[in-house]
């Protein structure tokens, strides 16, 4: 009976000890550091970089309809929202983009899409992303002279793309391993961690370089003229450029930190009331 009791207690303690090792792996300091760093970086992604506003120049050249001889440039304005509930894999971050682009020979487009940010290493300043965008080109009637008009009909595009995002001044966070061991962080890292917790405006800027292929979804796009339109070159240029295109994108943007949840708001109110007192 006594042996059985001892064995039972021993077994329970063994299970208790094993329970502290996820998936049977020994937790080392470095693993804990990584977990803490990943957790902090992940939370920061949805607080510091929840929203963003960007301006882009998008040179493009048409591929179909006999294009490809010229490089034109579109101007784009985009607003993005990063949704935490879409981060199902915990290893990426999906943000939804909406915006406008102003495209020579294609007119104005409404854009709606998403990109999937690969954040395998969350502390990196450069990350790969890929995504998909739908663009609806609006009907546009333009007067060239007198009562002469050239009218471009509605046209739709689907654009798969890949690119790099670069936060040049993003603070690199290092876990508080040294704090746990009662050692001071190196001054540079302590400063970096402080900047991580309290990002200033320069750390919110980012640059994106992207390439995509814009597929024209319409079988036929109407380009009509009225009033004795005679500019054949302009007509042909519009016609040829309303086509599937190879699109590059150079973008500069800024993240807009957000109060992520009610808990943050309560904490901010508390901090403010302390400051007021």
């Amino acid at each position, binding site marked *: 009976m006594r042996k059985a009791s001892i064995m039972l207690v021993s077994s329970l303690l063994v299970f208790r000890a094993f329970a502290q090792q996820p998936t049977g792996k020994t937790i080392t300091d470095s693993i804990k550091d990584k977990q*803490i760093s990943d957790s902090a970086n992940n939370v920061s992604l949805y607080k510091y970089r929840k929203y963003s506003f960007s301006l882009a120049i998008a040179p493009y050249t048409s591929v179909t309809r006999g294009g490809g001889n010229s490089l*034109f440039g579109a101007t784009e304005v985009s*607003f993005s929202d990063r949704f935490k509930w879409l981060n199902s894999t915990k290893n990426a971050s999906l943000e939804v983009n909406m915006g406008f682009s*102003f495209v020579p*020979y294609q007119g104005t487009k409404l854009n709606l899409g998403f990109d999937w940010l690969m954040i395998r290493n969350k502390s990196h300043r450069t990350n790969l992303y890929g995504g998909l965008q739908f663009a609806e080109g609006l009907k546009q009637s333009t007067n060239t002279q007198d009562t002469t008009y050239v009218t471009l009909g509605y046209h739709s595009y689907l654009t798969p793309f890949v690119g790099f995002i670069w936060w040049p001044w993003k603070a690199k966070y290092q876990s508080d391993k040294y704090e746990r061991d009662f050692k001071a962080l190196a001054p540079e890292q302590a400063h970096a961690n402080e900047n991580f917790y309290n990002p200033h*405006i320069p750390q919110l800027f980012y640059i994106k370089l992207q390439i995509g292929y814009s597929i024209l979804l319409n079988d036929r796009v109407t380009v009509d003229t009225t009033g004795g339109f005679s500019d054949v070159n302009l007509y042909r240029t519009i016609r040829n450029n309303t086509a599937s295109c190879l699109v590059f994108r150079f973008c500069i943007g*800024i993240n807009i*930190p957000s109060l992520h949840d009610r808990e943050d708001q309560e904490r901010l109110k508390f901090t403010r009331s302390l400051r007021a007192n």
Partner: protein
Amino acid sequence: MLSISQPARAIAVGTLCLIAIHHQAQAQTLPAAAPATDRILAQDLNYVAPGHELSEQLFFFNWDILMNPIYFSQISGPFRLNGVAKDYSPRPKFYALVPGQNPLIGSAITDEAGCYYASWRICFFDHLSKKNFFHNMRLITGITHDKLEAPASGTVFYKYTNGGTELTCMLDKNLSPSLTHFNYDRLRLIFNWNAQAGVFAALAKIQDTIRSGGDTLIAANDNRFQLPDPRSGWGAIVASNLEVGVPLSFNYSSQSKGFLRHIALVIGCRFMAEYLHSGTDVTKNGLPGYHLTQNMFTFAFCGPILGLKIISKL
């Protein structure tokens, strides 16, 4: 002493000792605190928060260049001479972006319009609760600059030479007050999503010469400007702006001073609906006493907007 006859007890005691040591070691490697995520968005101790919120500013100034004005819809009414509709054509329009613009961004910025607005705090609304519609509402006064003209033709010349200049008065409602407050308070980052609505009176005078249907209409005077007068042009604007701005000086220690801290560069975009009633006195076939009017309605989008914001109090 443990004897050989008691191997199970010996093993058990040994196991207990090992587990106790292992358990102690595990306890030591547990994080001293929860992951430091609750420090995220903590306040920088060296940062000096602005003493005044944007919504608390008694006054600040905006100068915005509206690039790429895209007019989704333009509805032009007929010309009216002393209230009688006339079939003069072509009818005037706001400038539109032509699809055949030059490569790259060269000409994408040539069709800009602009506005010069002062934003005033309405102290009368200060006592209102946060749920009140007029809470966080400001008064906008200033000049709106846009471009209206009839397409070049031999029959109708009707335009604001060098653009329209409209004395504007609007109410401005911040639609994202928490985000605006949060970012300005913590970073001095300006984020603003607002809705505006108001009226304007034309300060610029329509220049016109119309020869059509046997009528020759010539403007009674060719002044560039005029005093606001309901007969001479007025309208209404409803708009929504989304903008992000950064101050020219990022240094916000308690020691930093300087005018640059009061200036911020802003980039944004705008949806806008505008109604314009333009009017001018004309002579008809040399005879005075005629008044020519024309109504325009447009729904437009502008972007990007490049802006300059001057903030009075920090």
